[in-house]
């Protein structure tokens, strides 16, 4: 029996994760709220199934009862979170919430395989993160206050980073962690959120180059302090976020291209100043000749990714702990060995789908602040994932940033959940406004209908669907005939009509009741 479980469950896990990933991408293109809702429920079920199968495999392979406990807790907490969230916040964007839970689950499963004590710690952090995700939206009506913060965020952020640079403890050659009240955390993860708010709040009003200069100075200060702390991965993300957000605010590709050009030039300069950049580039270019020293970690990661093959060695049957820092820096390589390249690719794709969901939400925010903030959040998340995934697969040099929500580490998880919750809140606010607007429109319609309806019996008004079918159209035709001499008003009316009917942008994930 044991033999069968160990040999076969990996296919089950792969199938479940693949199904989940496919749904995550389908939802990018489906607009019907009903369809998205049902797909989200399926996703949560797939996630629960994957968790159960994974922990059963781990229990079979390694025989610790703790796995079963983790399994029960994890399934219970995440399923409950899903349904509770959906009920509490009817305007929440569940695909993002689901992806968040899925990535947390995969991370927890893998951490349990490495060591249950760490997984337990991580689980507590994850629950704390979920609590944040639950509590913050309650106060969403005050979210607009963030718009006014602007440079305050920048000052706070730079100050926090500077404190870490001067006082923080050194981890692997970089001053990036800070211990307060016995808790070690990595402030750059949280400063990132302040930084995004700062950029969105200032760039929303930026019209030309003149407006950009002070923003660039403050953004540059962030990056410089990070470079000073030798946290080059974060510095790179901050910089990329800046140039993409400037691009978004101004619409000029030139800024994007120039930004990348300057980045290339800066990399060359930094390469000559920082020995650990040189080492990482060497380890990237030829890890095999440096396999004894700086190439060891990346080569072990490559062994792991390759050894697993398509379906992996099966949970508990590989040797992911051969990779140094597998639980933080190389979590992807480790889980690819045991869960297979299919699951590895799915993790990449789920990450990518998170990015795309956030990006598409940002596109639909009319408010520049919201739009910029969501866009920045997407870019920061996407590039952070890319830097760490690319580093582990030897696609780019290692930068030493964590894989959001999967890697072991409280700061990373909490800040990413914060980031997601921010996007979630903006979406909820938008939903609230749409609800309100629709409510008002419906009322207006009703009133208008009684106005148009000569006999006053509201004939032709479909109360259930909230609009006129034939009668209203007729009324609109009449109106058009009246205003034919004024094309402009005709145009406006058509817009209005489209809005009332539920225009194209509304159709996405809008309530049809």
């Amino acid at each position, binding site marked *: 029996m044991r033999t069968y479980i160990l040999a076969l469950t990996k296919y089950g896990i792969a199938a479940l994760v693949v199904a989940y990933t496919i749904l995550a991408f389908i939802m990018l293109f489906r607009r019907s709220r009903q369809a998205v809702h049902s797909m989200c429920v399926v996703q949560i079920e797939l996630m629960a199934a994957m968790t159960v199968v994974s922990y059963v495999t781990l229990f079979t392979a390694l025989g610790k009862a703790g796995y079963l406990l983790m399994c029960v807790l994890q399934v219970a907490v995440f399923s409950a979170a899903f349904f509770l969230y959906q009920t509490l916040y009817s305007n929440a964007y569940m695909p993002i919430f689901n992806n968040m839970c899925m990535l947390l689950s995969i991370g927890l499963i893998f951490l349990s395989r490495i060591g249950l004590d760490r997984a337990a710690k991580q689980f507590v952090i994850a629950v704390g993160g979920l609590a944040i995700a639950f509590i913050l939206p309650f106060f969403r009506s005050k979210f607009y206050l963030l718009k006014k913060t602007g440079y305050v965020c920048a000052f706070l952020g730079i100050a926090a980073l500077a404190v870490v640079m001067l006082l923080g403890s050194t981890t692997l050659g970089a001053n990036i962690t800070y211990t307060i009240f016995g808790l070690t955390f990595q402030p750059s993860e949280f400063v990132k959120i302040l930084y995004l708010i700062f950029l969105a709040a200032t760039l929303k009003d930026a019209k030309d180059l003149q407006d950009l200069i002070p923003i660039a100075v403050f953004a540059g200060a962030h990056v410089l302090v990070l470079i000073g702390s030798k946290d080059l991965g974060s510095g790179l993300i901050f910089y990329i976020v800046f140039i993409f957000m400037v691009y978004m605010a101004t619409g000029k590709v030139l800024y*994007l291209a120039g930004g990348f050009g300057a980045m290339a030039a800066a990399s060359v300069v930094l390469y000559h100043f920082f020995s650990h950049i040189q080492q990482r580039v060497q380890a990237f270019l030829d890890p095999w000749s440096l396999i004894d020293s700086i190439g060891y970690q990346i080569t072990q990661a490559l062994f792991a990714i390759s050894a697993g093959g398509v379906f992996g060695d099966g949970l508990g049957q590989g040797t992911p702990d051969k990779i140094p820092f597998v639980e933080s820096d190389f979590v992807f390589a480790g889980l690819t060995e045991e869960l297979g390249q299919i699951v590895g690719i799915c993790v990449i794709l789920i990450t990518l789908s998170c990015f795309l969901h956030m990006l598409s939400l940002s596109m639909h925010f*009319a*408010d520049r602040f919201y739009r910029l903030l969501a866009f920045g959040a997407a870019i920061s998340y996407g590039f952070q994932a890319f830097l760490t995934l690319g580093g582990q697969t030897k696609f780019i040099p290692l930068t030493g940033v964590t894989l959001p929500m999967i890697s072991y580490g409280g700061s990373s998880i909490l800040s990413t959940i914060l980031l997601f919750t921010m996007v979630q809140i903006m979406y909820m606010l938008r939903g609230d406004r749409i609800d309100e607007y629709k409510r008002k429109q419906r009322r207006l319609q009703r009133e208008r209908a009684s106005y148009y309806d000569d006999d006053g019996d509201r004939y032709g008004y479909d109360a259930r669907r909230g609009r006129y079918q034939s009668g209203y159209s007729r009324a609109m035709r009449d109106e058009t005939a009246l205003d034919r001499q004024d094309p402009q008003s005709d145009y406006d009316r058509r817009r*209005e009509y489209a809005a009332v009917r539920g225009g*194209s942008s509304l159709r996405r994930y809008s309530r049809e009741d």
Partner: protein
Amino acid sequence: MADYIGGSGRRNNRITQRRREPDVQGRRRISSSDTGTARSARRLAAEKKRVRHQVFVAGGIVVVMFASMITYMVSYSATHKDELMNNDYNGREELLLAKNQRGKIYAADGQVLAESKTDAKGNQTREYPFGKLFGHIIGYTPKGGSGVEQLENAELIKSDISLSEKAAYDQKGELYPGNDVYTTLMPDLQKTASEALGDYDGAVIVTEAKTGKILAMVSHPEFDPGNIEKDWDSLMSDTEKGTLVNRVTQGLYAPGSTFKIFDAIEFMSEDMQKAMAYTFDCPGYTTIDGVMINCYHWEVHGEQNLEQSFANSCNSSFATIGTSLDRDKFAAKLKEMMFDEDLPYDLPSSRSSFVLDDSTSTKEVMQLAIGQGKTLMTPLHLNMITAAIANGGEVYKPYVVDSVKSADGTVLVQNKPTDYRNVISSDVDKKMQEFCREVVTDGTASKLSTRPYHAAGKTGTAEYDTNSADSNAWFTGYAYDDNHNEIAITVVIEGATGSGGTNAVPVARTIMDKYFGYTPKAGEDDDANYVHVVNDKDGDGVNDANEGTSTSSDLPEKTVKLNMDTNKDGINDAVDLNGDGVADAVDTDGDGIPETNVGGGATDISAAASSASSASSDASSAGSSSASDAASSASSDTSGTAQSTAQNGAAAASSQTQQTQGQAAAAAQQQTQDQAAAAAQQGTQQTDQSAQQTQDAGAAQNADNTQNDYVNPTTGDAQGEAAWSEQQADAAAAAAQNGAGQ
């Protein structure tokens, strides 16, 4: 659209509140107030379009980055899978071996070539029932591994038996049996080949011409893969022998006359009509641009067409052909025929190389044409070309692993013959087959002519060391009969004291006999049968020139159609001093006195004869025979002069030697005639007295290739030494270049 109209913040609410008013004015106001909003609506629509565009750009960049990352990851781990698994730093091999017992390696006939045994503690030991026999091709596992063990390591340590069987093994508490590798090797053929090669260093490869299956691959000296860890240090310290090097695939040898295959193919490919009409009147040597190359033992082949030149391995003729070929086309053809490229072979192999471009000197082109100089080949490469000749010009990828099966018999990998490339057009190939057959029926490989199966091929003798008698004896050929597949055999024997015809052909013949199940009749292989007596006007079976002396029983070839009258003046100016059927001396300047004494011929004669003609013997036969030890010591005082004069640019033609040698040479020259007669007598006695090996050497020099002796003093070229590893090959190439520079 609603969100754009709505905008954000409370201002929005105010607008909608105003719209709410449900009277006539209200309706009016909607449209009139919207005329103001209309502009902003349009602006917003434009902005939305722009935002959409920007989001697509940003999203596109990230999606492309992620997509290329995934592609890179998958392709990297797929293409480097085995390499990664075999890396010493990858501990996963032990992980697998803790679960699985390393699989077996089987021969084509089902015999086990390698298997693992697990002791009570779970330690696995690898055993090789055939010991040394398959050392190179099967290889070993420790120290990074080699051969099939390394090639199929990833499969051998996996176990793909069905789950139920795995469960059964778990029940028994045993390791799962790893996957088994089935090779194409034939143990009896391998054994025959190894025994036929005997104590010589060298290489033998036997492949199936139509498929590329490797049936036997022998490299001497051998090692025992079972004791590799014990013997490792001594094997590594012994760099001279290069025991661990698989000479078949990694040994680089000067191909000698076997290279004439390439000359002939190129000649016919360039112009078939010209090639068919080609004739060459071989006086035993030829001089092109002041550089002389002679046929073996100044053997005068007389009027030769291409086929005869090929069968008799006429150096003079092929040097002439070689220099007449279009260099660009020839170089291109050689590259097409896998020179200067990695062979399509899964295990490590060396690259064959040649030098030919517009700046190559005539001398080098002549050397190239007869497979000397900077030309180097691996036996595997030559075997592939030979198989291609047998096979209508198609080169098949040689392979040794036929299939990989799980222990319960499921086929996991089934290798199929791979048609790699067509290198010879069909009309040229047809001719080549005739030529190769002619070599057997009426040429240098006549030792194969009595066989009932159809054999064809080409011999070669390449001298790699200017200071000793050692040469590499080659034979490459193919054979088939009605019942068996066509096989291609390539044999190279290092340090052979004889030629390809005498040393390598019998090895190939033994292997072919084994393969075709033929047992030679008694006396069939008696080499005396092949003595082809020439210039026997009185029909007594003995050359007239040295009537009364016995012929050597080791005479190798019946190639000799010696025209003793090289200048057609009606007077025999060539003399066969030792009665081996080959002219040892020839009167090239027409003065009626044969003034030179060549190659092995000199060694057969006495030391006196040698020293008498020391000018030529030293200038020419540096590597002729071990017997010349005595001769060279006797003539050591004159040899320095001879070499220096030769290097001064005089061609090593005997006539010139006479002129440049000064008095010493002149005296020696005068003595030659007198001594020749004495030598004829003494030669016989000397033969009896000297060691049997010496005699072999002398006779064996009757091969098709000695030009090396003559060109060498004038060129100072480092001849193609066998290089054992790629680095050594590089070093050899560098040495060759240095040599050329001198």
